[in-house]
């Protein structure tokens, strides 16, 4: 296992105004599962892109199996056996699962005609190995975020990679699916595949990784054997400060009932009724497909419902569109930031005011100064890392984009704020900031509903947790009276 399969030597990557990678030299051993950790902006994504050839390093060399790689490119690295799975999926929504998995390598009869039968069979086999029940002919756009991630992994598996790079693969998966993922990783390990595993979830790293390398501000800091370290030490090196408690402490003082959902019925939801109180963070737990996002989207007017009522301060709300919801004082920070949260082509400033433009305009005419003033305010208070608020948001890292989305909803001054997976793909330091922000909002009297698939986060932040399973509420528990296993059981319908 001590053969070096991939070696980086003095890699530097410079962009105008920022050194994304600063003299990185690092060796990866054949067959190991190697974790790469670091805050957002530490250089992890840049590193992967250099390894796969998506971008070129400004300086430095790379060696694969002892041989130097010149003029790296995505196709070249793929040929050599390096496959990467990114946070943002590269799937074709209108093609089938099978067509996506085998894209670029369709099995052919007589060299020309695509062998769809074989493709379907192979796809079935790969998916069965992964332990998931997905129809090979299903259109990818009809799958949930969680299942799409699994297709991405299946795609990489089909390319028979020697080095598999995974960038936050478990982020959109629930605990069940993460277990599947890890089973696959174990299988790949047995075959001698080297895995580079980038993740913010330290507990996962301790489950499956052999070594862990820490990056900070574009610099490679050090590598440790996983067996010889612990989460506290890793975090300390990542942020160069010890974090103490992972979740800010808070005494929950429950106030009056503010929000009520009565007998909500949709395609997926069977008959949902719940209440939210002032002073209390309400958590929604459950597996992918349980209906958590469906409830909040119905509340937000994003989806049509069959029947049901929403009450705010005792009066029935008439919500037919997100516009109505925002006017009623309800905001939704969506699960899928790229598709639903940000306007990639617009600047940070424009994104922040987008849901409440009347505040920065008079009679429809925009007050540019006020717009930028407000954007600056949020940039500072949320510590959004960018050289300028006029930057197009697509140039920001995932974590910073999420902060802009948060800023957008804070700007609307909604009374009810729903967070759907608020810290997905965000580094430890930023997570802390968001948790503190949520507590601050509660103190201000806001109502917070939080959907999270991260058990520690749910137990750390939510005061009361409602658990769902296949469209029904299976349990309601208080934070200090429940364990992770209890929630898991309720999520599985037991």
């Amino acid at each position, binding site marked *: 296992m001590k053969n070096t399969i991939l070696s980086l030597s003095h890699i530097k990557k410079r962009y105008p105004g920022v050194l*994304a990678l600063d003299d990185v030299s690092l060796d990866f051993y054949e067959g190991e599962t190697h974790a790469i950790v670091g805050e957002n902006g530490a250089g992890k994504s840049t590193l992967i892109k250099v390894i796969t050839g998506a971008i070129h390093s400004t300086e430095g060399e790379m060696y694969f199996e002892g041989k130097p790689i010149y003029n790296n490119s995505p196709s070249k690295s793929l040929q050599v056996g390096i496959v990467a799975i990114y946070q943002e999926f590269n799937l074709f929504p209108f093609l089938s699962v099978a067509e996506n998995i085998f894209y670029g390598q369709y099995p052919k009869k007589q060299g020309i005609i695509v062998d769809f039968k074989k493709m379907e069979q192979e796809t079935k086999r790969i998916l069965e190995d992964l332990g998931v029940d997905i129809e090979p002919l299903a259109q990818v756009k009809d799958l949930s975020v969680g299942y799409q991630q699994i297709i991405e992994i299946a795609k990489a598996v089909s390319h028979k990679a020697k080095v598999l790079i995974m960038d936050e693969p478990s982020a959109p998966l629930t605990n069940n699916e993460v277990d599947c993922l890890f089973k696959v990783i174990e299988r790949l390990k047995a075959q001698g595949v080297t895995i580079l595993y980038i993740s913010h979830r330290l507990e996962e790293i301790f489950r499956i990784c052999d070594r862990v390398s820490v990056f900070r501000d574009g610099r490679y800091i050090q590598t440790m054997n996983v067996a010889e370290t612990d989460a506290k030490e890793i975090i300390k090196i990542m942020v160069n400060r010890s974090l103490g408690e992972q979740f800010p402490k808070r005494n929950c003082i429950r106030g009056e009932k503010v929000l009520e959902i009565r007998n909500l019925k949709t395609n997926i939801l069977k008959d949902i009724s719940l209440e939210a109180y002032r002073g209390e963070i309400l958590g929604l737990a459950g597996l992918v497909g349980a209906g958590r996002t469906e409830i909040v989207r119905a509340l937000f007017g994003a989806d049509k419902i069959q029947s049901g009522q929403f009450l705010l301060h005792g009066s029935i709300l008439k919500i037919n569109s997100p516009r109505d919801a925002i006017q009623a004082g309800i905001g939704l920070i969506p699960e899928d930031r790229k598709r639903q*949260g940000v306007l990639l*082509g617009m600047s940070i400033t424009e994104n922040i005011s987008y*849901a409440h433009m009347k505040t920065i305009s008079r009679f429809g005419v925009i007050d540019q100064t006020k717009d930028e003033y407000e954007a600056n305010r949020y940039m500072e208070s949320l510590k959004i890392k960018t050289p300028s608020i006029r930057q197009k948001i697509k140039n*920001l890292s995932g974590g910073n984009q999420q902060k802009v989305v948060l800023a957008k909803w804070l700007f609307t001054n909604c009374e009810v704020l729903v967070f759907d997976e608020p810290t997905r793909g965000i580094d430890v330091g930023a997570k802390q900031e968001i948790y503190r922000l949520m507590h601050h909002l509660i103190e201000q009297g806001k109502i917070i509903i939080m959907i999270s698939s991260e058990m520690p986060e749910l137990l750390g932040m939510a005061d009361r947790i409602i658990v769902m399973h296949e469209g029904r509420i299976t349990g309601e528990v208080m934070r200090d009276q429940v364990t992770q296993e209890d929630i898991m059981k309720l999520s599985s319908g037991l």
Partner: protein
Amino acid sequence: MKKRTVDWSRYGILFAWIALIIVFSLAENSFLSIKNIFNILRQVAIVGICSVGMTFVILTGGMDLSVGSVIGVSAVGGAIMMSSGFPPIIAVSVALIIGMTSGFINAFFINEVGIAPIIMTLGMMTSLRGVAYILCGGYPVYGIPEEFLIIGQGYLNVVPVPVIIMLIVFVVGYFILNKTTFGRSVYGIGGNAEASRLSGVNVKMIIYKIYILAGALYALAGLILLARVNSGQPKAGDGYEMDVITACVLGGISVSGGEGRIGGVIIGVLMMGTLTNGMILMNVPEFWQWVVKGVVLVIAVTIDQVAKKGRVKASTKA
């Protein structure tokens, strides 16, 4: 970072246009005269006004092939009303209403039925052209009152009235797109309609408004054309959709929506006009003019694309 460095790659089209002017003024003495310059401006006024409407449509990710036919119906309709004795102001209002109604119908089927804009406006283009012919029985309509001709043939000092109208339309269009929440929503919808909806933007309403606005502008252009040729021709505006869309694309408006500035569209319009005018002065045969126009479009967009890739490389962070 307060320093604003000039991004030369954005001005590719502008340079191409200036190069064209240089070429033509060297080839033909009469090209660079005041008379000819205003000639060009007046020629492009009609396409120019339509392109402002088209810009709004394409920015939201839509498309409008009905422009030429709205011009036709507006010209014929206005001519019939005025030759029947209605005061010009009534005829103008009716023509504008026809244009707006056409836009409304387009938007209705696009919004509520979900027909792709290019298909819906294609249908509108065909049937409206038929309506134009039906209204006038196939024959041009004469008898336009003198006072109406001003908007097509009149001058304010040395500046032709159509040019003034075009400038006003561009200025108002610029203001709406860049300084109002409506304009920002237009860009937002083109960039990501779903994220816009989830941010509380009334996407359907804005789609209605832009198609209606575009329809009104096309109708206005039709009236100016009517005044210019002093007759309501059922064939008026035929084929204009190509010139209008080309001008927008040349000007940097992305057909996938959400990207492009109206300033570029002015250049696109001027570029097309300059090209046509120069070729006529040089006695280039008509069929060759078409070839040249098509080639110029492809070259200009290629330059723009290459420049855009250069911009992306420079500003992308991991």
